[in-house]
């Protein structure tokens, strides 16, 4: 007993002293980072290491540290099928970086540790931070054209504002980030058409009709169970009223749509949508619906999608991919039809505005993520990355591999032309095992769209084209310094006002002036001034 305890004691001291020596090296490596912010050195070393490890054909594989898209927070193994295939095809050595681009704190810690990956995927909301910190290198327009011509075409075709935003230096013709996703998805609103039939109503076309539908859905027992236990829709944040806001002439940030809307007043001054008269009218409208009991009473509910699944509400606003049953066969929308085989749904067209005008949709950037290149990444590495991106668009087999694996083995194509996972290859853990979806460039060309969404993709595109879309006055991603400082305070006031007024805790009319005063005082004034300065002195100088 005695001896054992002593040896345990010794072991502990040993462990700690090892840790201590580790600490010694820590301080030196720290200073290293500070002085030369190395990386090119590192990659050079790695090059040599790899050359020793592998018996390569003729050239050394180019090492690439890749921050990608970990589905469900799971990372592909280094020897997964997709990683191996990319390495073989492009003669690269992929190092999967374990940081989730969806989680800014993980990205920040990665950068803080002195690690600068070669391919960086980053949320649109964090792009300013990346640029300000000087973490990325630029990529010339010529290089894009040379190595990723299809991609380049698609980017400019679909994102004319990209060259208008912070990521592009027009003088040097250099991109500091390129979009990963492409802007085609406004939030859609779906409505239970079997409910509409049951209460004997037609698809609403304006706000009055919408209100009437809400009444019928709440009071006329649309699910026919004899109980008054249904509601028109639920609200937990302003995303849920996105399409209603459009009828008042502006778009609201919320859910995955991060862009804010600025509206030019008759005096020529730009104001944030949340402090305009239209917003006030919207709140009045929504709070009236709430007070009449048409909206699900609990606005703090966490799993509000389940309300639609369970047939408690009959109207839901969400991103269109959620409404594609075969694309997300296990998700809440698909479950609606499993739980209730009689359920039928359809998209709601944009409603006419409160003054009889068309609903206005601001052109959302819809770039949810950017791809950038680390500041120490070499031209050779950039070239390889661009080639990998380009190949996804032009090479159908490679596109499929990156997204879903091998046809016949991991997925099949159904009669509508849509890809369906075989067995449980659509499962998050299996996706990580295979390595799919991690390296995706989120653009789709032609039949790639059909593969992803089947016929729905065309229906949705057609729908979207019926929307009345206007340009953003302040392009998304424009850095607004005052927002960094006051953004959180201002947003708190907005959120607080939104939920308090629609639930009737506060009266919109009575509280409006007070709200404006608090909003401006909390830093809204500074943000608004800066936005106007940007608009008139930078974007529209002449």
């Amino acid at each position: 007993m005695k001896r054992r305890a002593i040896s345990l004691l010794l072991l502990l001291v040993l462990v700690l002293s090892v840790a201590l020596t580790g600490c010694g090296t820590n301080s030196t490596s720290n200073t290293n980072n500070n002085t030369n912010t190395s990386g090119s050195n590192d990659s050079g070393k790695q090059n040599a290491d790899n050359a020793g490890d592998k018996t390569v054909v003729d050239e050394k594989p180019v090492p690439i540290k890749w921050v990608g898209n970990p589905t469900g927070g799971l990372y592909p193994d280094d020897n997964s099928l997709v990683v191996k295939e990319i390495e073989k095809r492009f003669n690269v050595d992929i190092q999967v970086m374990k940081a989730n681009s969806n989680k800014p704190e993980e990205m920040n810690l990665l950068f803080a540790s002195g690690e600068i990956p070669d391919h960086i995927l980053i949320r649109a909301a964090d792009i300013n931070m990346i640029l300000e910190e000087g973490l990325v290198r630029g990529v010339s327009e010529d290089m894009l054209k040379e190595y990723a011509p299809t991609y380049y075409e698609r980017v400019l075709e679909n994102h004319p504002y990209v060259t208008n935003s912070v990521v592009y230096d027009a003088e040097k013709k250099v991109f500091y980030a390129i979009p990963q996703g492409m802007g085609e998805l406004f939030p859609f609103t779906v409505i239970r058409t079997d409910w509409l039939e049951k209460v004997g109503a037609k698809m609403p076309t304006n706000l009055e009709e919408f209100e009437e539908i809400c009444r019928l859905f709440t009071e006329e027992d649309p699910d026919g169970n004899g109980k008054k236990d249904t509601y028109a829709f639920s609200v937990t944040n302003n995303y849920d009223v996105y399409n209603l806001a459009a009828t008042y002439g502006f778009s609201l940030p919320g859910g995955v749509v991060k862009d804010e809307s600025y509206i030019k007043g008759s005096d020529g001054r730009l104001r944030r949508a949340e402090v305009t008269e239209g917003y006030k009218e919207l709140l009045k409208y929504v709070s009236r619906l709430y007070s009449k009991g048409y909206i699900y009473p609990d606005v703090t509910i966490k799993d509000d999608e389940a309300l639609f699944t369970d047939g408690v509400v009959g109207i839901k606003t969400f991103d269109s991919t959620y409404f594609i049953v075969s694309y997300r066969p296990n998700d809440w929308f698909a479950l609606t039809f499993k739980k209730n085989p009689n359920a039928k749904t359809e998209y709601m067209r944009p409603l006419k505005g409160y003054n009889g005008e068309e609903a206005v949709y601001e052109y959302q950037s819809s770039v949810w993520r950017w791809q950038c290149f680390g500041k120490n990444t070499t031209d050779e590495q950039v070239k390889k990355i661009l080639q990998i991106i380009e190949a996804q668009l032009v090479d159908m087999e490679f596109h499929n591999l990156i997204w879903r694996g091998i046809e016949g083995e991991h997925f099949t194509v159904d009669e509508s032309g849509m890809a369906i996972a075989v067995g449980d290859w659509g499962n998050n853990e299996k996706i990580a095992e295979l390595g799919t979806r991690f390296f995706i460039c989120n653009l789709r060309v032609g039949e790639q769209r059909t593969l992803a969404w089947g016929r729905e993709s065309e229906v949705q595109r057609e729908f979207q084209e019926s929307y009345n879309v206007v340009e953003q006055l302040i392009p998304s991603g424009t850095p607004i310094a005052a927002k960094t400082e006051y953004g959180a305070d201002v947003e708190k006031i907005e959120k607080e006002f939104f939920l308090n007024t629609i639930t009737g805790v506060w009266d919109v009319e009575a509280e409006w002036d007070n709200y404006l005063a608090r909003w401006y005082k909390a830093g809204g004034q500074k943000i608004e001034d800066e936005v106007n300065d940007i608009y008139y002195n930078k974007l529209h100088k002449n």
Partner: protein
Amino acid sequence: MKKNQSGSVTSSVSAIKKPGVSKAGDLLFRCKRYKGLLIMLIPGLVWYLIFKYVPMYGVTIAFKDYKLLKGIMGSPWAGFKHFERLFNSSQFTNVFWNTLIIGIYRLIFSFPAPVIFAILLNEIRHERFKKTIQSITYLPHFISWVVVAGIIHTVLSPVDGVVNYILQFFGLGPYKFLMMPEIFRGIIIVSGIWKDIGWGSIVYLAAITGIDPQLYEAATIDGASRFRKIFSITIPSILPVVIVMFLMKVGNIMEGGRDQIMNLYNPIVYRVGDVLDTYSYRVGLIDFDYSYSTAISLFQNVVGLVFLFITNFITKRTSDEGLW
């Protein structure tokens, strides 16, 4: 209270005050005498050095403009900029007040709950029943706030929550509990009590068990009722423990319980429920302003320390009990 059991959790601070008592020769003698023990201390101290003191340079972030690439040491100094920003923020008064008032509510309501519970439990005479109740009340302590908050949301739901279901039998409600600013702090307090009343009572139950039984016997012989015994023997006997625990709680007054509030609050109750902890979290989440959020937590710690010193001073003056 036996003399040889003295020494509270931080009483050793008093030892710092009298370092010069021993002479150099004496020190050498004691070093020799306690050689083994001093060696034994080394691993622990090394651990503190590595895991606590090495990262402590991070406190300077609060006084710097932290830049990722420059690192903490290389980032430029910013003086009190971040503190000024905090104090000038339009939300500061509200958030600070909320933190303070929830902290005070915790002292008034949450703190005595386990004491009362311990005393009541002590009055239960069926040992097995007592043990069972004890075990059951420890249960919620082991569950994280995420889960507890989920339970609270379900139970308090205005549409299908059990509480409203029961209230409807009495013709009341439905109430949208979590959307009522006037009772939100109450929910925070009650759920906190629910979670920790059993666990918190362990200390007091232990203290009650430590009371000399002869005191009770003597009181019984004198014909004292049970209430009498509770108020004249039980409570005064555990008072020192209660005071020490109280002081420790005062030191934590500014810690709003981030996990708890974050999982329970919503924008409707921001004005009563947003505390420094949640505020700094949101600021950090939106802007990744490490400097700012470090400044906020430093401010919190300092205010907590000040509270601790003040209450310790007052209690020492009035009751001769204190942390040091």
